[in-house]
């Protein structure tokens, strides 16, 4: 009996599901190992009991809460797929304003029947068994996590920071060219992708379990960043206010 797997999405860009679909080389093999019973983005099937549910996106309305709880109720294991589901990701950027302010800014007028809540991660509403971090997720990491789940082994995420992977790739530290990088705080597992591509780490994978914030902020201050600058750095992916500890 192949494990039944479902993919679900809430408020987000669906880039994580797309990243799964972008595993072109592995997709045909993967399909042999499990029964994908639900994948709304590419399928109109609606399944029943699930062994694994991968859920993408943040939760922004009571309808979404109901739907999420229903998915949880019929899934043996539920995994957050990507930053929006895991930590609220980029969606949290708007939580510094009230919903009325947001509507006002975007539409010019308040709309009476709007039922908008600030986006929240899955675990604000249901038990989450694990997560695939990142914005977007890393395809290879998703594969490894899925493989673990398929042989009933609990997947483990790296506990070290992106710096380690950056060093293994022999990349020069961005701080050397005066560019602030969130690599020292951010959980590894992406192979320092953005740094390898010439950018810096923006922290999309969330922080390691025990981030060394104190020493890191001191280094940022030495590089001339104010407290507000540091918060701005973290705000893009790491200041949802209800991120895991």
């Amino acid at each position, binding site marked *: 009996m192949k494990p039944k797997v479902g993919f679900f999405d809430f408020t987000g860009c669906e880039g994580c599901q797309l990243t799964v679909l972008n595993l072109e080389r592995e997709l045909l093999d993967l399909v042999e190992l499990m029964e994908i019973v639900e994948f709304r983005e590419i399928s109109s099937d609606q399944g029943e009991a699930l062994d694994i549910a991968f859920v993408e996106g943040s939760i922004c309305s009571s309808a979404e809460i109901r739907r999420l709880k229903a998915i949880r109720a019929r899934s043996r294991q539920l995994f957050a797929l990507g930053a929006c589901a895991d930590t609220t990701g980029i969606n949290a950027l708007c939580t510094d304003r009230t919903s009325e302010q947001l509507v006002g800014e975007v539409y010019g007028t308040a709309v009476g029947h709007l039922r908008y809540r600030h986006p929240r991660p899955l675990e604000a509403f249901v038990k989450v068994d694990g997560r695939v971090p990142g914005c977007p997720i890393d395809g290879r990491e998703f594969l490894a996590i899925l493989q673990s789940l398929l042989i009933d082994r609990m997947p483990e995420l790296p506990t*070290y920071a992106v*710096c380690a992977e950056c060093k293994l790739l022999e990349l020069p530290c961005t701080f050397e060219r005066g560019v602030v990088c969130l690599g020292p705080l951010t959980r590894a597992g992406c192979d320092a992708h953005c740094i390898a591509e010439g950018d810096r780490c923006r922290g999309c994978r969330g922080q390691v379990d025990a981030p060394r914030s104190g020493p890191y902020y001191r280094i940022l201050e030495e590089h001339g960043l104010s407290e507000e600058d540091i918060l701005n750095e973290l705000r893009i992916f790491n200041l949802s206010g209800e991120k895991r500890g």
Partner: protein
Amino acid sequence: MDKNEALQIQPRPGQPEKQAGPGAWYLLSRGDIDRLVRSLSVAYEVVGARMKDGRYTLDRISDPAELELEFPPRVHSPKKFLFPNWEKLFRFRLGGKVMLEAEKAAVPRVIFGMHPCDLHAVQVLDDCLFEGEADSTYQAKRQATVLIGVDCEPDAFCFCTSLGTDKIDSGFDLFLHRSNDGYLARVGSARGLRLLRRYLPEIREVDNPQLPPAGKSCQRSIRFPMESLAPVLGEVYDHAIWQEIGERCLGCGSCNLLCPTCYCFNVQDRLDLNLQGGERVRTWDSCQFDQFTRVSGGSDFRPDQTDRQRHRFFRKYKYLWEKHQRTACVGCGRCARECLAGIDNTEVLNSLFAEQVAAEQSPSPGLEYQPQMAELLSVDSLTGREKLFRLRLPEPVSFRPGAFMQVSVFGVGEAPLTIASAPDADGHEIELVVRSKGSLTRALHRLKAGDAIGVRGPFGNGFPVEEFVGRDVLLVAGGIGLVTLRSLLLTILARRGEFGRVMLLYGSHSIDQALFRDDLKRWHLGDQLDCRFAVQHFGSQWGVTGGDITHLFRDLDIVPARAVAAVSGPAVMYRNVNPLLFGLGFTTETIYLNLERHMKCGLGKCGRCQINDITVCQCGPIFPYSQVQHLREAIER
């Protein structure tokens, strides 16, 4: 070696030229090296430094022209070829046994461009990985890899010269020295020679290689011999410096990952896509990572960066040194070079060492013998030969009654003088009694208020006043011995309510020689203590007992069970008084004696005050009887 002189290598006497082996030299041009690379590429994977994305890296060389023989120390270590981060240990089938897999020999490889420090690092890896049961995966790579050294120019982070790892005589197959007309290849192994002979048969051996002067210098250094490092570290396990760097450390593990000698690893199973099988792989790990020392149940025996950084230093510089007598650090500077927090091994080690040395050697020799200058506030004559000096000290002091100062006059000398006043909260002023009897005390007697006087101290172990609290106190003083007991008495009087009965028995030769007569009179007339006197030479109007002090014991009403006795006087007095005290019921624990001697240093060193095996200046001069009863020199002489 003289920097201005070219290195001269003398061929070993008697060695026939044609049988050149390790130690032989050949002259190569860059063209020869290119040809060597091209020829080696047939049988070997040739690795060397080349430019990639604007920086140097050790990588596969496909075109000899890419190969750089001069490159900065910053390049990542060749460890990645000998002990790679991702190494398959074996393959398995899920639910099955270990899969039998044809033994895959290590790829034959030539590494061009081993800097001397990296060659030293390979020796460290050999020490560690060949120890006990040799690591076969490493061994296979090690055997299949030809190491060709090149020289390098230290940068701001290197400190190889202070470790002696800036040059190397063995551990390579060939070593290429840059010379004026190409490269001088030094043969380090039979394999190295074979390769040269085979692929460059026409090159010529050089008998007298003229190497350019080797003048490496590093900005950073370890400023002490490596041998003393392990003992130094042994002393500083709890040093604050670990916390200081621990609080700066980001725990990123870069120091370990970049280190050419770090080899700690993790073992993981990687599954094939079809979930039928997989492989067990080892990957580099770091003692700075959170998971590294976590044990089942979640506890962690090295839970924070303070512990982890200390461990890194201890392992590199102490544990492995003690095991292999080789430093596990080769001074390549990679850890500090890429540490975002700026943790620098040389800085840490030098400061620890400097501190240790400072603790052992006073920064200015003789400082502990130098007196500080005190101001003489007043001088009062007590008798014809004793004067009371009141001093203001430059630094406040605290002491127990019975302690002494070393008092000096430059040009005359120094002598110990018991403090006659009680310790007070301010601690700036003390009183001393000076009896004029030698040249120093005579010189002191000539001083007047306002003069400066040299003092050291206080020294010595005084009366345990706190143990006297709540008890009756019997003070027995003879002659100048009263000075010591005055300090104790004034201390008690200042806290009078905390003690029971207080009794002073004082004996002196004559009334004229009695010290502190005004005090004695006041105490005698007051109701704070019972004060009795005895003089041997009678002739005064006061009601004084004639005879020696033992006469005062005759009608002594004291309850010894709740009393202590403090006795201070000449040895002869002890011999007479102590039996009386025991007769009254005092014990060896309740009698305290003042055993002043002529201490020269006050530091327990000079030996002048040593009574049998005890130095008075350190252990005394106030002792409970029990502590000195077995000392034949204490009372009996």
